[in-house]
């Protein structure tokens, strides 16, 4: 597919890297020639230097033949104008980044009037992700499928867990809940485990379960749960605003530490119930004073990864049970984990999965479409949800007889609202939603790709 990406910033670059790896023809437009030169050295893409909203530049990028345009510059207005212009010039699909809360309220209007096919808001996505994590703080990550009916959650096996040392095939005997472990992270390795795999202490397991059973799953695993009442946010960014709004709605106390006085005033207007504190959120005494053994959660949302990490580690030292850091440079994730920071939020990656799903879905209009895509374990494993249709192969055949590709796992089948955790005797029918886990070596864009 021919894709034009406007804006080679954090989101733009991640998308370029990922989409070019999946074999699409990509042209990147940016105003900064320096950035484009660096990009050329790492990705096999074409670059055009200039303003992506100008007709002349868009034409130079062959927009009239493009299947998709993604506008990801830092300015919402330029993004909107770019998408509008591109659509008029004949680009079939457009995706725009819109992150200003003032415009977010009129998203449907904008989508309809400007013909946008999708909008992305990394900050809102990050806020949503953090919020869902805080609902069950024992989970390091939560991904939903089948309209929220099924989730894949990441749990760290701490000491005292009931299933340590057990084989996966005997799991049901201990916890009495139907679940499926679809990936296990041990050190730097990732396993898509089989029945005789044994869980060890320190493993991070990715478990699929029905959403209503999550609480009982934690109880059965003997993992302590923590109720969240007081949250401290360092940095009053857009993420903080979106998050505070959600948290307040569910009755959680929010405290925001922000250095810029003017921003503090804006935040008090936007979030009347939150406690806004004007001060340097990375100052030790101030943070100590504001936490004072009361906060359950500290979330550091400043713009510098290093500071966020230090704050997360510091919060642990102060005895805050949960600390979350926002990070932009994911390539050092394994290094950060050695500091003891486990919950990290990366806005651009969350958005990247959404766009990837959209692009892969565009590629297969004929067969069953991809409904959800989540990437786990540092993007090494992908969990995808597909709709099985008539054209899907091996329908109605018991799974044990189906020739699957290597490293593919059918995690669950949702049939008429029922969730099935499949065994060898189960089968896929047309109309089912099927959740697949796979290692992300070869991209899977349709259900038939899972077979040999």
């Amino acid at each position, binding site marked *: 597919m*021919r894709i034009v990406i406007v804006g080679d910033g954090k989101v733009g670059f991640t998308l370029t890297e990922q989409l*070019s*790896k999946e*074999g699409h*023809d*990509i*042209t990147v437009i940016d105003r900064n*020639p320096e950035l484009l030169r660096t990009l*050329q*050295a*790492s*990705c*096999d*893409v*074409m670059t055009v230097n200039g303003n992506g909203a100008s007709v002349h530049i868009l034409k130079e990028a062959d927009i009239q033949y493009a299947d998709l345009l993604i506008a990801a510059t830092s300015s919402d207005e330029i993004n909107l104008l770019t998408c509008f212009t591109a659509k008029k010039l004949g680009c079939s699909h457009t995706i725009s980044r819109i992150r200003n809360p003032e415009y977010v309220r009129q998203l449907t209007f904008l989508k309809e009037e400007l013909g946008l096919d999708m909008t992305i808001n990394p900050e809102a996505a990050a806020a949503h992700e953090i919020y869902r994590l805080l609902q069950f703080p024992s989970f390091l990550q939560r991904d939903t499928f089948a309209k929220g009916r099924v989730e894949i959650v990441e749990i760290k096996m701490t000491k005292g867990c009931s299933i340590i040392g057990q084989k996966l095939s005997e799991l049901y005997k201990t916890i009495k809940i139907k679940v499926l472990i679809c990936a296990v992270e041990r050190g730097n390795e990732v396993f898509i485990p089989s029945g005789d795999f044994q869980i060890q202490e320190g493993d991070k397991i990715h478990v699929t379960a029905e959403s209503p059973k999550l609480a009982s799953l934690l109880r059965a695993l003997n993992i302590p749960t923590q109720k969240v009442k007081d949250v401290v946010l360092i940095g009053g960014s857009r993420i903080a605003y979106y998050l505070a709004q959600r948290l307040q709605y569910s009755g959680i106390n929010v405290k925001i530490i922000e250095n810029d006085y003017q921003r503090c005033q804006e935040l008090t207007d936007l979030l009347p119930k939150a406690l806004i504190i004007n001060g340097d959120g990375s100052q030790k005494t101030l943070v100590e004073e504001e936490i004072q053994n009361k906060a359950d959660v500290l979330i550091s949302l400043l713009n510098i990864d290093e500071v966020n990490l230090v704050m997360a580690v510091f919060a642990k030292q102060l005895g805050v049970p949960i600390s979350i850091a926002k990070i932009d440079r994911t390539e050092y994730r394994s290094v950060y984990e050695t500091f003891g920071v486990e919950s990290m939020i990366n806005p651009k990656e969350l958005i990247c999965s959404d766009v990837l799903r959209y692009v892969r879905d565009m590629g297969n209009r004929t067969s069953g479409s991809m409904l959800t895509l989540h990437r786990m374990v540092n993007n090494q494993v992908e969990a995808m949800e597909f709709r099985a249709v008539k054209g899907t192969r091996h329908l109605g055949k018991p799974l044990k007889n189906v020739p699957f590709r290597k490293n593919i796992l059918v995690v669950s089948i949702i049939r008429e609202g029922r969730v099935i955790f499949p065994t060898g005797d189960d089968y896929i029918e047309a109309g089912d939603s099927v959740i697949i886990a796979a290692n992300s070596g070869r991209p899977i864009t349709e259900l038939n790709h899972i077979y040999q």
Partner: protein
Amino acid sequence: MNRRMIARLIAYTLIIEVIAMLPALGISLAHQESDSVRGFLLSIGIILACCALLLLFRPRSKTFYAGEGFVTTALSWIIISLFGALPLWLSGAVANPVDCFFEIVSGFTTTGASVLSDVESLPRGILYWRSFTNWLGGMGVLVFLLAITSTQKKGEGSSLHLLRAESPGPIVGKLMPKLKQTAVILYAIYLVMSLLELIFLLAGGMPLFDSFCTVFATAGTGGVCIKNDSMMSYSPYLQTVVGIFMALFGVNFSIFYLLLTRQFARALFDEEVRAYLAVMAVSVLLITLNILPLYHTFGEALQHSFFQVASIITTTGYVTADYGLWPGFSQTILLLLMAIGACAGSTGGGYKISRLLISFKSVKKEISRMLHPRAVKAVHMNGKTLDNTVTKGVSVYTTVYCAIILLSFLLISLDNQGILTNITAVLSCTNNVGPGMDAVGPSGNYNVFSNFGKIILALDMLLGRLEFFPMLILMMPSTWKRKSLH
């Protein structure tokens, strides 16, 4: 330095070379030239053995940076030249191994210079192989490798380093988002134009074998001849066809792509092409007027003048007339054209028209800055501001270009030839033209030099074809330094 990865890529280029040798082997078989058949078979055997040896080293990682790109390019060109020379030597067609190396380097680098006084006595298979190296070297072996291999691998940026290192010109861009597509388009244009020329030549009654060899040499702007008198014995029609196609192959290939995609305005207003055509037109006119007394009609003078200008500016090096007998003014113009060369992104060599344009524009900018010290100026080309790195790159290139020419001039003067012979030999080889003047002119050849001189000139050809930097980087000791454990 990821040596294993480099070894692997070189092995791939050697496989391409073996495949390229097969038609020549077939021709030798058809003409029952038992010596050349033996030569080709032995060479293919040796190359394949070396390939197998290189492929034994499995790359441990796929990291591939700019440095690896340059080293791979330089090394693979040297190695394919060494192995490419084997058939000449093993078949006994050329006795001196240094001569064999000189001939094949001259072929791959599309120079067309020769040390042989009687080309026509060579076996047909060997003649074909000499010509075919022109075609392969014109667009580049690694570009060919990029066109046929999948770039759907990790470290995708790596392949761009290869294209950059092998394609001539100050700015190397892509025509399509993917490098592979770009390489395929370049080769497709190259192939189609070659076929067109072949049809025109056959229509003019040129024998099949001659047509093929001439097309190879024109397309690569190499000018390796299969006749002792170059193009002199062919009919004026054939000479004109070859002349026009030489001029076409000297145009930046992206212009043809623009024409194909119907972006006529962008193609026609390209500054480099306009300058190229203008330089050609002016030179043809001046030389025609200058040599008018030597020929019977204006038409004849014009034809020879056009052919010679096209041949020299595109660095092909074919001759239809012995320009050594022309007046000094015409010879001087040809000498200058030799140094300028064709457009960037074409198969021609030389300093390149676009570099000349950028240099002049930079000079103009600096002069205006002296008059108005506070002026803010930028160099523009085709309506776009040129990056500082490009103008800086051009001036560095100019320095290296002059330095290499002067150094080689000094080194080959040890052979005690005339100054004109020496300087034109160096200019001609470094710019991949072919014939020079005086002793290395259209009526002479490079056999006047000793083995030492020939090796220096062969290196000049490689330096010039790869635009100096890959070869220089290869020779830098720091490129090869390993990480010490202490």
